[in-house]
C-alpha cells in the first residue's frame, strides 16, 4: 500500500512539474500536440472583430451544401491570410454558418469588404525563375534566399512551392503565397518581400521560386491587364483521351483581343492562372488562342466549383452577415485584468474556507486545488481552446465546484470518525462511500455542458461554447485531483506521526 502511494505521489509530482513547465515556457512544441505559443485569448479579452455569416442555400441541392460551405470557408481563410491578421479563427458553425474572428481588427467595414469581395481571376506571365531556397522558409519570414536572384526584379510577384499540383486541399506545399518583391540583394541572393509569408514551405530540391507580372495587352492604344471582368462564360468539361476535367472559359470581344495578344507573345512559355491572388495553374501556352481557354489540373469537383466561382464572380454560396461584434482592445485588457483579480480572490476565499473548516484535510484539499488550477491552466495552453470571458467565468466557477468532491469525502470521513473508526479506515470509507455521489452528480453537469455546447454552436455564440467546454474540462480534471491527489496525500499522511493527532482531522 505504502509503495503504491509513493509511486502515485511521484506520478503527481511529475505531472505538476510538467504543468509548471508548460506554463512557464512561452513557446511549446510537443509531440502529438504540436506547437503552441501561449494561451489563445478570445476577442472579448484582446479586442477584435467577430463576423458571423449565414449561407443562403436556397438554390443549392442539399447534397452539395456542406462541400460548398467548407469551400467558402477555405476561400475566406485565403483572403484573411492575405490581409496578414495574426491568428484569425475561421470556423463553420451549425450547418450553414461561418464565424470569422479577427483579433486586433476593429474596423468592421474593412473586415466585411475582405470577406464579401468577389473572386478575382487574373493572368500572370513569368518574369524570372530560380531554384528555390535550399533552406526552409516559414510563416513570419520576409526574406527568401534563392540560387539566382538576378533573374528577378523589384515589383515582381513571386510564388514559391510545388505549383505543379494546384488546388490540392491537403497539400500545403502546393498552395503558394503570392508576395511582391520589395528589394533584391544580389550579393547574398536574397529577396525581401513586401509582407511576411503566412505558411511554411520546405521546398527542398524540387522547389521553385518564380517571378510573375500581370499579363497585359493593349486595347485602343491603352495597356490593360487581362482579368475576369472580360469573361463571358465558363463551364466544366472533360477533355482529351484521358477525360481530364477542365474549366472552359470564353471571352467577350475585348477579352478575346487581349487574350490573343498575350498567348501570341507567350508561346512555349507558362501562363499563370490566378484566382484570389493565388496561382492555381500555370499551363504552357501551345498556340495563339483568342476566344476560349481551358484551365487544367483539377478534379471534377474542383472544376465544377471553380466554374461557379468564375461565373458568379463570388463565393461558392451567397453569404449574409447575421451577427457582428467588435470589442476595443482596452476593454478586452480591462476584462482580462478584472477576471484575473476575481479568480485570485475567489481561489483565496475557497482556500481559506477549506483550511479553517476542515483543518489538516483542508490544507491537503487546498494543495490539491492549487494543483488543479495549475493542471487546468496547462491544459488550456496545450489544447487549442480559445479562452473567453465566459470561459474564465467557467474556470473560476469550476474552482468553487472542484472542492465539492473533497467536501463530500471529508464530511463522510468525519462521520466515520464519529462512528468510532480508526483514521485510516475512516479515510478509506470516506472515499468509497462518497464516490457514487461524486460520480452521479458530476454526470448531470456533463449532460448540461454537452447541451450548452450544442446550443452555442447552433446559435453561433462562441462565448456559450467556450463556457461549456471550459466547465466540462474543469469538472473532469477536478474529479481527478479531488480524488486521486487528495487521497494519496491523505494516505501518506496517515502513515506519519501526524495521524495520531485526530484533532487535526476533526474540528
Amino acid at each position, binding site marked *: 500500500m505504502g509503495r503504491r502511494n509513493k509511486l502515485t505521489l511521484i506520478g503527481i509530482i511529475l505531472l505538476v512539474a510538467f504543468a509548471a513547465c508548460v506554463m512557464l515556457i512561452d513557446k511549446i512544441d510537443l509531440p502529438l500536440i504540436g506547437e503552441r505559443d501561449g494561451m489563445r485569448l478570445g476577442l*472579448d479579452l484582446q479586442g477584435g472583430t467577430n463576423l458571423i455569416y*449565414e449561407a443562403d442555400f436556397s438554390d443549392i441541392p442539399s447534397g452539395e451544401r456542406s462541400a460548398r460551405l467548407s469551400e467558402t470557408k477555405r476561400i475566406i481563410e485565403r483572403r484573411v491570410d492575405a490581409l496578414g491578421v495574426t491568428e484569425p479563427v475561421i470556423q463553420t458553425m451549425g450547418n450553414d454558418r461561418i464565424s470569422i474572428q479577427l483579433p486586433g481588427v476593429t474596423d*468592421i*467595414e474593412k473586415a466585411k469588404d475582405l470577406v464579401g469581395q468577389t473572386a478575382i481571376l487574373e493572368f500572370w506571365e513569368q518574369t524570372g525563375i530560380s531554384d528555390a531556397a535550399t533552406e526552409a522558409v516559414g510563416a513570419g519570414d520576409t526574406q527568401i534566399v534563392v540560387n539566382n536572384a538576378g533573374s528577378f526584379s523589384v515589383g515582381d510577384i513571386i510564388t514559391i512551392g510545388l505549383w505543379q499540383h494546384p488546388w490540392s486541399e491537403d497539400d500545403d506545399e502546393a498552395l503558394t503565397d503570392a508576395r511582391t518583391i520589395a528589394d533584391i540583394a544580389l550579393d547574398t541572393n536574397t529577396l525581401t518581400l513586401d509582407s511576411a509569408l503566412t505558411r511554411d514551405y520546405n521546398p527542398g530540391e524540387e522547389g521553385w521560386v518564380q517571378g510573375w507580372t500581370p499579363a497585359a495587352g493593349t486595347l485602343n492604344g491603352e495597356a490593360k491587364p487581362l482579368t475576369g471582368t472580360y469573361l463571358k462564360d465558363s463551364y466544366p468539361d472533360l477533355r482529351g483521351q484521358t477525360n481530364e476535367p477542365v474549366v472552359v472559359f470564353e471571352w467577350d470581344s475585348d477579352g478575346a483581343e487581349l487574350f490573343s495578344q498575350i498567348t501570341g507573345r507567350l508561346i512555349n512559355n507558362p501562363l499563370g492562372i490566378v484566382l484570389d491572388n493565388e496561382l492555381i495553374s500555370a499551363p504552357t501556352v501551345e498556340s495563339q488562342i483568342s476566344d476560349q481557354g481551358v484551365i487544367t489540373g483539377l478534379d471534377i469537383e474542383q472544376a465544377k466549383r471553380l466554374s461557379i466561382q468564375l461565373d458568379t464572380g463570388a463565393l461558392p454560396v451567397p453569404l*449574409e452577415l*447575421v*451577427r*457582428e*461584434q*467588435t470589442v*476595443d482592445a*482596452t*476593454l478586452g485588457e*480591462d*476584462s482580462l485584468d*478584472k*477576471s484575473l*483579480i*476575481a*479568480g485570485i*480572490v*475567489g*481561489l483565496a*476565499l*475557497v482556500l481559506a*474556507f477549506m483550511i479553517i*473548516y476542515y483543518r489538516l484535510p483542508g490544507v491537503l484539499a487546498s494543495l490539491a486545488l492549487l494543483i488543479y488550477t495549475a493542471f487546468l491552466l496547462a491544459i488550456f495552453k496545450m489544447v487549442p481552446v480559445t479562452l473567453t*470571458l*465566459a470561459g474564465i*467565468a467557467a474556470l*473560476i*466557477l469550476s474552482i*468553487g*465546484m472542484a*472542492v*465539492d468532491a473533497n*467536501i*463530500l469525502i471529508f*464530511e463522510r470521513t468525519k462521520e466515520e470518525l464519529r462512528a468510532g473508526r480508526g483514521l485510516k479506515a475512516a479515510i478509506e470509507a470516506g472515499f468509497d462511500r462518497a464516490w*457514487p*455521489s461524486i460520480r*452521479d*452528480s*458530476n454526470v*448531470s*453537469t456533463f*449532460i*448540461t*455542458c454537452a*447541451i*450548452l455546447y*450544442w*446550443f*452555442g454552436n447552433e*446559435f453561433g455564440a462562441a*462565448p*456559450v461554447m467556450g*463556457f*461549456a467546454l471550459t*466547465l466540462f474540462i474543469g469538472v473532469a480534471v477536478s474529479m481527478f485531483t479531488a480524488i486521486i491527489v487528495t487521497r494519496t496525500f491523505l494516505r501518506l499522511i496517515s502513515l506519519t506521526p501526524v495521524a495520531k493527532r485526530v484533532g487535526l482531522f476533526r474540528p
Partner: protein
Amino acid sequence: MLDFVGKRKWYFLFSALVILVGVVSLIAFGLKGGIEFTSGSTMTVDFEQTVEQADLRDEMANLGHDDAIIQRTGEGDFLIRTRELEPEVRDPETGEVITPAERDMIEEALEQRFGTLTVLDFSSVSPIVATEIGRNAAIAVIVATVGILLYITWAFRRLVKPLRFGVCAIVALIHDVLVVLGTFALLGGIMGIEIDAMFITGALTVIGYSVHDTIVVFDRIRENMAKRAGKNLEETINNSILETLGRSLNTSLTVLFVLLALFLFGGATIQNFVLVLIIGVTTGTYSSVCIAAQLLIVWEKREIPRLLRRLLPRRALLREA
C-alpha cells in the same frame, strides 16, 4: 434532532410565494430581451468629455434614432441601443461607396458634437438569428431536462420507484428556473436588466447545478433506504437531509465565494451572468433540501390528492356563496 421533514408545508408555502411574485412579474413586465432576442445594434461609447444623457439622446434623435435606448453604465460610459444599423452600400460596378455604414455616420456625428470618443464594443444581430434563439433555448432546456430525468431514473434503477426520484429532481429544477426567471423579470421591470445568450447559459448551468445538488441528497436517501435505517420513509429522508446538510451548505458556500468574487471584481460585462448563477446556486441548494427530498414524501403519502380534496369542496362552497 432537527425535524426538517415535519415543516415541509412551510417550505412549500415559502416557495409558492416567491414563485408567485416571480410569475406576477413575468406577466406584468415579461422578460426584457436583449438584441440577441429582438435583433438590433448596441454600442458602448466612452467619451473623453463629460456628456449629458439628455444631449446624447437629443443628438441620436437628430440622426433619426429617436427610439434609441440610452443608458449610462457603472463606469460612466454610455450604452446605446438602436434598431439594426445598416451596413455601407457600394456600387457593385465601381466599388464606390454610395451610402456609408450607419454606424460610421453615428460615430462621426457624435464625435463632432461631443469630442473624442472610443467605441468600446459594438454588436449587431440580424432578425434571422434573433428568431432562433428563443426556440433553441427552449429546445436546450427541454433536452437537458429529459436527459437528466432519464439519467436519474437510470442511476436509481435499483430502487423500487426510480422514476419518482427523477421527477422530484425535475420539479426542483423547474422551481429553480422559475425563481431565476421571476427575479430577472422583476429586475427587468425595475432596473431595465436585459437577458441575452449568456443569461440562457447561466440558466442552463443552474439546471446542472440544481440537479448536481439534488443527486447528492438523493444518493444518501438511496443508501439509507438500502440499509433500512430509520423507522419509516419520513425518518430516513430526514436523516439523509441532516447527514448531507453540512456538505450541501459548504459546497454552496465555496461556489458562492467564487461567484461573489466574480460579481464584485469581474467587471460589468459578466455581472448579469454571475447574478443568474448566484440566484440559481442559492435556490438550487434550497430546493434540493426543502423541495426535492420533501416531494418524495408527499408523493409516497399521496398528500397532493388529499390537499386537493380538502381545497375543492371549499371552493365549491365559495362558488355557491
